[in-house]
Structure formats: C-alpha cells, structure tokens
C-alpha cells in the first residue's frame, strides 16, 4: 500500500503547505484563549484559524454541522481535487468520540427545553461518530466503503491497517484515510476530568492510499508495517517495545530517518532507541506544535515526517516510524518507507 498524497487542516492553517511550513519552523502554532458553557474556565487551545464552517463550505448542508465533520469534509476536498477517485473509492476516518459538543448540546436541549423532545433533529446525524466519514463521502461523491474507527490516539495505526485490508481484499480502489478531532469545551471537560493536562488542539489529516501493485510507484511513502499491542499489565513502554520489535523486523537501525511520537515525554523515543540500539535524532512531536489533537495526532505525526522529508536530501528510500500511546493501554506503531515524491496535496 502506498501513500500518494496528503492534506491537513491544522492550527497552522488550511492546507498541507501551511502545516509543512509550520512543522519545518518548529515553532508551535498560535493558541487562542476561549471558553464555553461546558468548560467555563478559559484556557488556551490550538484552534484551526479562520475556519468558519459556512465561509469554508457554504450554507447548504452545514446548518447543524459539527466542526469535526466540517474539518474532515474540507480536508478530503483538498485531496479529492487532485487524486483519481472512482465509484469504489472509500473513506476511513478515525475519531475518539465524534463530536462531544454536539452530543452534549443535544442532551442539554432535551433536559432544559419545555418538552424533552424539543431537540433539533437535524443535529442527530452529526451527533453520531460516523458523521465525518459519511458527510465527507456525501460531499465529494465517494460511494466506496465508508468506515469510522473509534481508535482514539491509535487512529493513525488503525485506519492504515483497516484501509490496507480493504485494498488487499479489493473492496476499494483507493482510500482517503485519516482522522479528525474538533476542539470544544465539551472535549476539554472530558480530557481534564481524566487528568490530561496537555494544551489541546484540533484539526484533520487525510492520506490518499492506493494498492502498491498498481504499477505506479510514484508515491510519498509505502506502508511497510502496522502493529498494536495492549499493555494489559500497565507496562506501557514494554508493550511499545514489543510492538516495535514486530513492526521493525528487517529494518536496519541506520535505515531509520525519522520518528513521530504521540506524547510529550521521551517514553516513545526511548522505546525506539531500546529496539534499534541507537537514538533517532529527528523526532516530530505534533503535541508540541499543534497541541493534543487526540485522534488526529498520529496522522499529523506522519504528515509532519513527510513535510520534513520532502526538503531533505537523505530521506529518499529510508524509513520513518510513528508511535502512538493511548490512555486505555493500547500502543501502536507504523513503519513507512519514504519514496521521495512530494505527492499530491
């Protein structure tokens, strides 16, 4: 399976160019202070700038649309214009819980209005977790397999593994695969409740995937391996080491060009060093740049590596690794071979 293009809508702005420039600069994206009914204490967050849903997508079909769905529709659209989609092109997106804001708002309406059923039924499809993938398909006429995976921070690994199987089984000709996370006070409330103190962010990142056997080797990268493991005993680092041992089989330490991590600490890069026997100096940590973007962090890690690789002389043909760790004990890794093509964006 090869990755022939990618697009992002991130706190650096709309489009892959803004994201690539931001990652290369190494300077965190701007954060703005905000608050809402669900999380009244104002705190800074990395929001996608200038992203008013109606301005970006128009008024039709957006009246009740959640921000996450809009981010996904827009991001798929950036790629859709460039890659060849057909009747069997699919969409596979990762999420944590869909639009928590829409779900909470719907519940609040039911509890506070004069009648418990005085809710806005048009909001209902946007309260469901499949909304971003389903609306992206609807917006762009993509009638192939359409799947949403609730994999939280492991979404990058999960969508690549799932989409890879779809392609191998010939159920799709190509797949828009990625993840989305919207920022809201409702999400902040849930994250703070479970003890997450990271600055939060939002965005969407989407890759376009094709079978490697298409004859077309012109690609950003080839997916070499994906793997996950559950730290059933709470030993997260050990689980990640075991996971990496499997996904890095046959990869020589000096082949590894770069690493993307999901967390803020050094645990993931330490695990990679333990497996490779050498430290990888080039580390992309999206959390430090665009905040904790939940489900999309892992995909931002990959696209960050792609952004760095396309300006590098020594990346071509080498390997990049992305690791992910979730609070539920799941760990994962993705290994890709960089093919040196700038790709469609």
């Amino acid at each position, binding site marked *: 399976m090869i990755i022939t293009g990618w697009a992002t809508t991130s706190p650096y702005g709309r489009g892959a160019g803004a994201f690539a420039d931001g990652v290369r600069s190494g300077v965190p994206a701007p954060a703005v202070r905000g608050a809402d009914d669900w999380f009244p204490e104002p705190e800074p967050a990395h929001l996608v700038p200038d992203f008013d849903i109606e301005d970006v997508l128009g008024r039709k079909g957006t009246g009740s649309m959640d921000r996450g769905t809009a981010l996904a529709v827009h991001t798929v659209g950036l790629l859709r214009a460039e890659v060849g989609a057909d009747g069997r092109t*699919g*969409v596979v997106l990762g999420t*944590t*819980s869909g639009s*928590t804001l829409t*779900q*909470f708002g*719907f*519940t*609040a309406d*039911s*509890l*506070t209005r004069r009648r*418990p*059923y005085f*809710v806005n*039924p048009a909001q*209902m*499809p946007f309260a*469901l*977790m*499949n909304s971003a*993938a*389903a*609306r992206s*398909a*609807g917006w762009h*006429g993509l*009638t*192939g*397999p*359409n*799947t*949403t*995976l*609730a*994999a939280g921070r*492991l979404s990058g690994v*999960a969508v690549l*593994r*799932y989409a890879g*199987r*779809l392609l*191998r*089984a010939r*159920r799709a000709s190509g797949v828009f695969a990625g993840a989305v996370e919207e920022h809201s006070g*409702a999400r902040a*409330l*849930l994250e703070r*409740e*479970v003890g997450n103190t990271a600055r939060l962010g939002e965005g969407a990142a989407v890759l376009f995937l094709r079978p490697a056997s298409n004859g077309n080797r012109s690609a950003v990268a080839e997916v070499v391996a994906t793997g996950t*493991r*559950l*730290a*059933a005993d709470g030993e997260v680092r050990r*689980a990640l080491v075991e996971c990496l041992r499997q996904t890095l089989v046959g990869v020589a330490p000096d082949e590894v060009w770069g690493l993307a991590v999901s967390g803020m600490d050094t645990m993931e890069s330490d695990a990679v060093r333990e497996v490779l026997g050498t430290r990888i100096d080039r580390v992309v940590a999206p959390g430090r740049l665009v905040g904790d973007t939940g489900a999309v962090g892992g995909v931002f890690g990959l696209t960050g590596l792609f952004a760095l690789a396309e300006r590098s002389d020594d990346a071509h043909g080498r390997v990049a690794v992305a690791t992910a760790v979730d*609070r*539920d*004990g*799941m760990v994962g890794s993705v290994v890709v071979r960089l093919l040196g093509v700038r790709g469609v964006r």
Partner: protein
Amino acid sequence: MRRVAVTGLGVVSSIGVGAREFAAGLRAGRSGARPIGAFDTTGFAHATGCEVVGFEPERWLTRPETLPRAGQFAVAAATMAVRDAGLDGLGDARTMVSVGTTDGGGDRGERIAEAVVRGAGVPAGEAARVPAALLSVGVARELGLAGAEVSTVATACAAGNYAIGDGFDAVAAGDVDVALCGGADAMCRMTFTGFYRLGAVDPERCRPFDTHRQGILTGEGAGVLVLEPLDTALARGARIYAEVLGYGLNCDAGHPVAPDRSSVARCMRLALDDAGVEPGEVDLVSAHGTGTKANDVTECGAIRDVFGATPPRTVSVKSMLGHTMGAASALSAAACSIALAEGFVPPTINHVETDPECGVDCVPNEAVAADLRVVQNNALAFGGNNSVVLFGRAP
C-alpha cells in the same frame, strides 16, 4: 483465500442472554419490549424500549466499573462466544477483536452533560468510560489478548456487519486465526429522543413491514461471532453454525438520514458477487427492517430490485429486539447463524397486515421450519453506510 466458519456465538439481548436462550427467544417470537428504565422518560408521551434487564456485569468482568455499559455487554458476549466455540482460551492464536457501535460510551457522556446542566459536579470516573475504543480494548483486556488486533468500528447502525466483514477478510487472508467480531450498544437518551422527535418511535411495539407500523423501539445488547478458518474448525471438530460467504460495503454519499434505494440494492449486489451467490440462491433475508415508514419501503424496494417480484422471505428480528443500534446487525447475524444451523426462520412479530408497499413475506408472528442454504443479513445506517453479509449453511 481461506473459507471462514462461524463457530461460536455470544449474545446479550432483551429476549435472552447466551446463544441458547437467544435461539429459544427467536423460535418463540419473544418480545423484548418494556417500559424504558435506563433514563428519565418524564415528558415523553410514550417510552417503550427493549432493555436488557437483570444483566450482571460481575459475572463476566473483573473490573466492570472501568467500562461503559456497552463495553460490559461486549465483554460478556465475547466471553460467551469463546466458550460457545469450545475454545479453551485463545492462547497464542493470532486474534482480532472488532466491535461495532453507534454510541460507544455515549450513555456515560449523557450523565456528565446532565450533571453539568444541573450545576452538579461531574460524577467520578465517568469521563474515563466515554471513549468508544474501550468496547474492543475492554474485550482484549478481559480475555487476556495483549497481542490482538483491536478495533472499535463506529459506523452507526450498520457497524456490526462492518466488524464481521473485517473479521471475515482478516481470517480469509490469514492475517489472524480467530476473529471475535460483532457489535454492542447501551440504551441512551440521545438516540431515543432523536428518533422520537422525528416521529419514528412506536408507542408500544415494533412492527416492521406492517401497514400500521409507527417506527422503531430503541434497544440494547451485544452480539459477538467467533470466526475461524473452516479447515481449522473442521479439524478440531468444532460445531459450525454457518459459513461466512462474503460481504459488501458501500456509501450512499447522499442524504444524511434517508436511505437510497438504488445504493442499498448496489450494496446487496456487491455482497452477492463477493460471495459468488446468485440472487435466486438466497433463501432468507434478515432485513435491516427498523419498522419506520421510510426504511421498510425503501429497503423492500431495493430487495425487489435485486431479487425480482418474488423475493425470498424477508424478516426483521428488530420486531423482537428493537433497534439495538451498533449491535443490531451483529445480533441479526447471530440470528442468521442460528437459523441456518437449526433450520428455522425467526418470525417478524407484532404483525397484523403487510404493507403492500413493502410486499414481502415477513414470516408473521410464528417461526417456521425451513431448509436454509444461504441467508443474507442487511444493515443500513445514517450517513448512508450500508453493509450486507451473506451466510451459508455449514458444509
């Protein structure tokens, strides 16, 4: 490619827990309908649903408080399914756990939202139980499957079939040796309220394909299937409920909530092609059959488009189970497997008069004995996410 067998079933439902009780319920045409107790229904003119009563999570989980109710259902169903398959644990088998869901831990999110609205503190521990990923991760944790491929498929009300399809591909391709796949959901206020507002909740009973149907009843539960290679199942002398013959997925890419007849028909054709089955070979369709005006007419129209003027018997187990959302097509798949293994067609209960616009033989009210060879399981979801799985009689 390897052929894939269904060798175990785990069921949590309003008409019975465990494959045997569930089968008895299907055969008897049992109804799971009762007054909703899962949330406060004050202010609704009617509130009937298909709840699971008397579920004891401690029977199945070492730490039930770590999972939302849907996750508890998933773990219980998966544990039952593994035992039902006669597998003495899964040991070193390469395993997949795939659980479909609509709402995940959304019922816990509702508790939190309610607390905030009422000015109360967020109940301790609830936020940690919200993420839907916990449904599959919980199964892996409880069954000691640290190396399993784990996924929670959140493709709304077609999610169970999506999970089964992915499990089928994984076993067929040799990626895994055993797949535990299905779906789980718990009753929640949001789904009930949304359908109620749309005028799509029946006051008393779910009556798919009936002229006087008034909509769904919301329900809850979980269904998990054990899939393994047919050769392995035969070699170990396992009881084989059914063979998974193939499946189809597509997306309407159209209206957010209304199903698209031609797209649903296309999904059925994709599944038939994948299974290598001619329409005339299908003996039974277990329909999505929600009991809403729009779904049943559109789905039956699509069935006639594919099967012609006299389609196979077309039943809806939602008449008994209500609409269990992400669990719905998994429970329906379990019903298909049981129907093939035991040779009967589960009835569409609460049926008085077939809507001529539906025009199907829905096997009203009483199960009938039938020599079934191929059974089709339909699932449609908001967002136009269709999935159809074909099951065949065990060879």
